[in-house]
């Protein structure tokens, strides 16, 4: 058992650190949920891609570096420690791309991934529906067979990035006889096409971070189905595991923020907040180490099972506690437009998206602890 980086890993980390130091913008970009900020973030992503830092874990032929899981984690730590911008295309890079690597065709990968790596094409997720939130299998949007493809109809909601993104991905009921998880198909579909209407929804910060998507007989060709028709649930589980598990909430986010929190606290050393500041740092360090453990397990052939629910439960609560502590530390200034205030608003979404904390607790209790399944 060790925490040592071999020469290769240390060199990779140093290269990332040096590049980020030279290239991360001095001033924070505008929110990527604004027209101006969205364009700024696309520009930043192109710059990352030019230096092959946008998708380090992908194969080189798609713009990546074939980075191992450990190298990817090291990159993420450096990325967030450097204060680099948020990732406008994270739905694509960290949710759709892993699904394409597992279930996509070579043609799909060739067509979709290179423009995703440069964020020339930005992707939104389209999981939830008005009547299908935690219970995604209750979804009602339909896909009907047509010549050479499918016709999609229905309504998706809470679609992150859909206000400005080019495309989206999600599940549709393709077999009207299919019940619940059966008879669903996984589609990629355009957001700027005939029959698609996107209604942006302002979030708590006032910016349209998500949107409703109305689909009215939207034709999608067969080549935009991922996996086999009617097998969408199984395909989507790959994506869900990626979102809830390692990928979306990289360890670097929390330790970098916790280090900033400790530094902020050290200016006054307010004893009333010492406990919460220390606990935030301890939680962030625990998250980093847990990730190193997961990386080791996966490198040795293990799977991401119900542990990804443990993982999500932990970070979603850590992120809220960390930001609440920062706001209490800032005092009256916390009400103003500080970086911590924006971060706090963002953290509040964590216990909801990607499966609420309550759903995660059910998963942990039933699949990790083996408690009997009961009524919801």
């Amino acid at each position, binding site marked *: 058992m060790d925490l040592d980086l071999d020469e290769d890993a240390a060199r990779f980390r140093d290269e990332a650190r040096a590049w980020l130091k030279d290239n991360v913008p001095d001033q924070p970009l505008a929110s990527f949920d604004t027209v101006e900020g969205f364009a700024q973030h696309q520009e930043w992503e192109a710059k990352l891609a030019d230096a092959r830092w946008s998708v380090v874990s992908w194969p080189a032929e798609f713009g990546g570096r074939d980075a191992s899981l450990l190298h990817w984690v090291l990159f993420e730590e450096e990325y967030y420690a450097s204060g680099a911008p948020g990732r406008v295309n994270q739905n694509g890079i960290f949710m759709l791309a892993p699904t394409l690597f597992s279930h996509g065709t070579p043609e799909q990968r060739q067509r979709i991934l290179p423009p995703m790596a440069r964020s020339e094409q930005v992707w939104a997720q389209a999981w939830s529906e008005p009547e299908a939130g935690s219970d995604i299998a209750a979804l009602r949007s339909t896909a009907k067979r047509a010549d050479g493809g499918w016709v999609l109809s229905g309504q998706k909601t809470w679609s992150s990035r859909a206000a400005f993104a080019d495309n989206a991905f999600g599940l549709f009921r393709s077999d009207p006889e299919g019940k619940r998880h059966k008879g669903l198909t996984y589609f990629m579909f355009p957001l700027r096409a005939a029959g698609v209407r996107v209604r942006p929804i302002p979030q708590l910060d006032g910016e349209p971070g998500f949107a409703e998507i109305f689909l009215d007989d939207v034709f999608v060709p067969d080549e935009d189905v991922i996996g086999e028709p009617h097998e969408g649930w199984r395909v989507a589980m790959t994506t869900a595991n990626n979102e809830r598990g390692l990928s979306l909430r990289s360890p670097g986010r929390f330790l970098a923020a916790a280090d900033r929190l400790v530094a902020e606290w050290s200016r006054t050393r307010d004893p009333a907040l010492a*406990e919460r500041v220390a606990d935030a740092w301890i939680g962030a360090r625990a998250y980093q180490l847990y990730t190193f453990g997961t990386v080791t397990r996966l490198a040795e052939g293990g799977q991401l099972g119900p542990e990804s629910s443990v993982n999500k439960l*932990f970070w979603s609560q850590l992120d809220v506690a960390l930001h609440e502590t920062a706001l209490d530390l800032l005092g009256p200034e916390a009400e103003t437009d500080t970086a911590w205030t924006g971060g706090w608003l963002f953290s509040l979404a964590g216990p909801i998206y990607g499966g609420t904390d309550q759903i995660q607790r059910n998963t942990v209790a039933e699949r990790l602890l083996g408690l009997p399944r009961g009524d919801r």
Partner: protein
Amino acid sequence: MRFALSPEQTGFGASINALLSDVDVDAAARAWAAGEPGPGLKIWRGLAELGVTALAVPERFDGLAATPVDVVVAFEQLGYHAIPGPWVDTVAVLPALLDDEVLAGVAAGETLASIVFAPHVPFALDAEVAHARILVDGNVLHAFEPSRSLSSVDPVRRLSEVTTGEQMGPAHDVASAFESGVLATAAQLLGAGRWLLDTSVAYAKQRKQYGKEIGQYQAVKHLLADVATRLEFARPLLHAAAVTMAPRDVSAAKVAAGQAAYLAARTGLQVHGAIGYTAEYPLGLRLTKVRALVAAWGTAAWHRGRVLGR
């Protein structure tokens, strides 16, 4: 980087678990609390045969010179089974305090130690069964004699105040002795927390109310899921602290293991209900031990201070 236990370490933990699952540790603990250490000392010798008492002892005193990670693996099991006796003092702390033939007796399982480490460990644990009674004052070691007996919230921990005796000379490595004591205590907390979770899950699967196993109810499920999450995230802190032995990591591990174990204790009691509140049921042995260990070898507040770089 390989941040996982080796197969040998996992196997070592499993063999300790197997040995302790075969003996009635709870009965030994109750006897120990009543001042009859015989059954507990028999378990001590059994564990010595497995090599547990020799772990941190250097090879020149017939020890195994094992790593702190091995020590943590062993203490997690000792905590799981809530074993009685001055294990932290003897097996984790003493080998770093002394460079002396006494350690050969520790390795053989014949010598037990009781250590007072002011200010964080002001009372002697199990001094009446200890052959080596040592008080650490700065960098200097003294002998001590137990004076007034104290009653611990965990009656299995037999505590006493002490009278300082003659000076024994300088400590070998006082800093490392202290960190080892903290780490072994944290490992016991994690183990006790795991036992509390396992036992509460098993109970929730068989106890029925309103016609259903109580483990079907989300109110119960969610409590237990939170405990599992806390314990899962305490373990890597413990392992990393054993790898780095950095005071900040050691303190982080102690705080997190204490929080997780205490949550496991409170939740375990709540899931069990009144049966858990009885002296007869074994849950209480862990619940009170967890409370005692949370304050032993540095309080949570003191360790948080180290995390923040006091």
